[in-house]
């Protein structure tokens, strides 16, 4: 099963675990499995329309899924999905 690495501030919504194994053949299915198992995770990752929030990037191993096949990107047993924030700013 693919693994999802949980950023520290979100572990409180995942039984304090830093890694969650989920089923799913695509990144979208894996994230859906995560938020089904841990519903409080959902509002942190997705907006009301069910889209990933603007500050959330998802990586499959070392690749941003936006440059792969987005939520349709295939995942396998040895794969690691990371949730990476998107951060910028100014003055």
């Amino acid at each position, binding site marked *: 099963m693919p693994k999802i690495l949980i950023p520290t501030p979100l572990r409180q919504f995942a039984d304090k675990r*830093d890694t969650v194994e989920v089923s799913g053949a695509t990144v979208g299915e894996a994230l859906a499995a995560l938020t089904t198992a841990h519903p409080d995770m959902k509002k942190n990752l997705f907006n009301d329309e069910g889209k990933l929030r603007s500050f959330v990037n998802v990586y499959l191993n070392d690749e941003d899924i936006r440059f792969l096949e987005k939520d349709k990107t295939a995942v396998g047993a040895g794969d690691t999905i990371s949730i*990476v*924030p998107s951060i*910028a700013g100014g*003055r």
Partner: protein
Amino acid sequence: MIKIEQEAWDLMVAHARKTYPNECCGAMLGPIDGGTKTVRVALPLENAYPGAQRERYELRPEDLLYAEREARKNGMDLIGIFHSHPDCDAYFSKTDLENSCPWYSFVVLSIQKGQFHHANSWLPNMEQTEAAQEELEHPNA
């Protein structure tokens, strides 16, 4: 509250002074114990903003992925992000808010005429509409 240890703090201030008059940015790692976050390690990261870096910064997600991995490797947590405001105060600007992530503390260092002046820490909300000020302890306070 967030506490920044001496070594991490020195690195953050040095990074901010070195990049002056441009904005700097980086990640802060350390343990979280109840309500207290302790910054033990600062990771200066490259400002990847393609335009005028005197007024903007941008972190590459790849660099944040690296920061997250470094934290895990060392049994720590990624707890915050820092950036500098050259020649202006350490407020949380509209641009900061609109490009923030509610999971982290955002430490802003005001650098005036190339020297450290003051710093504040901010906690933006999920909707990116406001940021609460967080109690900040650092060696130059």
